[in-house]
């Protein structure tokens, strides 16, 4: 794999994960447990989709086949999507929503932090802006994991269940493949070992504070999103998200 190929692939992963997680949060509009949470969820979703747009725009320039950011988001099918499986998991109850957000936010925070020092200046620039947002997301989701884990008996039970449900998707966040390694070697992407170490450290710290038990480190992990092999959920997400662009392919302006 050449560095140029790996870069395009890597940008799509960043974009797609932001996009799909943002989409999941949009589904919660009007359904949050408090008005403050309505605001916060939409705020986080807005940040993520905004970041997705920035990554897509850069990816579109490099891919350079006439597709723009919207075409990349709304006209690729599931097998072409490169998001992490974690981000496409259903909202379920608020413990799952917050657990998913927390596991992703830790990965996202350390990734972006590293990307601010990327040898690719465009990436470093986008990451610098995104890092501020991800810092807020992480503070928020880790607070909720603690509140729910160390709240009532019921919230503890639900939060532990959420950790157990989601644990099998955490491996993909910190397991590097060829693309990740090429990016790391070029000084573009984060060092995979460091990322894994940082992720484990913070996750363990927060879960301990939340009186929760993490999954086993050698647990079986469900992976494939980064290569376009998704869970059954993604097809439905895209069917809804892409409906207008697919139903009215002749429309050039919306």
């Amino acid at each position, binding site marked *: 794999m050449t560095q140029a190929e790996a870069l395009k692939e890597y940008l799509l992963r960043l974009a797609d994960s932001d996009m799909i997680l943002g989409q999941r949060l949009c589904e919660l509009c009007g359904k949050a447990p408090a008005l403050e949470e309505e605001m916060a969820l939409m*705020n986080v979703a807005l940040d993520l*989709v905004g970041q997705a747009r920035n990554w897509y725009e850069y990816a579109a320039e490099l891919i350079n086949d006439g597709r723009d950011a919207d075409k990349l988001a709304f006209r690729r099918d599931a097998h072409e999507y490169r998001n992490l499986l974690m981000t496409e998991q259903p909202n379920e109850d608020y413990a799952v929503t917050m657990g998913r957000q927390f596991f992703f936010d830790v990965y996202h925070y350390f990734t972006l932090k590293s990307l601010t020092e990327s040898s690719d200046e465009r990436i470093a620039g986008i990451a610098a802006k995104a890092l501020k947002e991800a810092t807020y997301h992480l503070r928020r989701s880790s607070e909720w994991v603690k509140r729910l884990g160390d709240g009532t008996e019921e919230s503890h039970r639900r939060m532990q269940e959420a950790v157990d449900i989601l644990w099998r998707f955490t491996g993909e966040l910190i397991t590097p493949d060829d693309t990740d390694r090429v990016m790391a070697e070029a000084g573009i992407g984060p060092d995979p070992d460091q990322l894994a170490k940082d992720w484990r450290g913070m996750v363990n710290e927060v879960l301990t504070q939340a009186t929760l038990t993490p999954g086993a480190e050698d647990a079986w992990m469900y992976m494939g999103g980064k290569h376009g092999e998704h869970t059954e959920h993604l097809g439905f997400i895209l069917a809804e*998200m892409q409906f207008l662009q697919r139903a009215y392919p*002749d*429309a050039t*302006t919306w």
Partner: protein
Amino acid sequence: MYAQLVETGAKRLKTKEEMSPEEREFQEKVDAETKIEPKNWMPEGYRKTLIRQISQHAHSEVVGMLPEGNWVTRAPTLKRKLQLMAKIQDEAGHGLYLYSAMETLGADRDEEIEKLHQGKAKYSSIFNYPTLNWADMGAVGWLVDGAAIVNQVVLQRTSYGPYSRAMIRICKEESFHQRQGYKILLDMMREGTEEQKAMVQDAINRLWWPALMMFGPHDDESPNSQQSMAWKIKRKSNDELRQMFIDQTVPQLEFLGCTAPDPDLKWNEETGHYDFGEINWQEFYDVLKGNGPCNRERIKTRKNAIDEGAWVREAAVAYAEKQKQRAQAA
């Protein structure tokens, strides 16, 4: 988004002679355009009317997230999706802001929200209409936010200080939403396909009359309206505001190249206003009574959100309590 029909409890207006010294002093303050603040004395009827009006207004912001939330997962481009999310986020913020203003009057937000879920408190009738195509997102911004702004601009001068200040802040964001909504329609009419143009006209056909209903019933004879005007909670009559809205909106409609679903709509040279057809008041009262297309769904969604979120809020309270105890022990 605001309140259309607010009970004041008044059967008729009191004369100056019938007022107690406190009431008279209050009325003189209002007449002199001095803002009433939370710690000032106020008639009980004034307090209750404002609680009803501001809570209805707040509920409208919150329920109003749902017809737009219906399309946020299906928005056709990244730009439109981001705009819609920002708008919905603003609406949640307006709701919070208005509940705070309401609480300065001694009301409790959880109690008022409970009344909404029991069907005892109203919200703007417009949000009981479904959003059926993407152009509805443009039409809601242009017509619905447009109608809300006409009302809220006047409410910036309402006699109760906290409500008036909430309106000043909210109006700025609403105007921005309205322009964005209009732009959605304009872009589709100018550069869209025939199918997209048809979507725009369809959205206008469905939302035109419901938007006009947002100003409430003819109010000249209503004691509620007279009392609200005397207290300067309301500053203009429903019909005056509706006429202002029509006069400013018809040229925008023509600029789009669309039509209104009203054969009686025409410019009146003599009055300098647009004449328009009669509103279907039966439909208006049906919707207010809970029998509009989406009344049941809207309340059910909101009630479920709060009911199913109870364990989350309880967890937050329990955690905060533990943290407090830990801090004291340390």
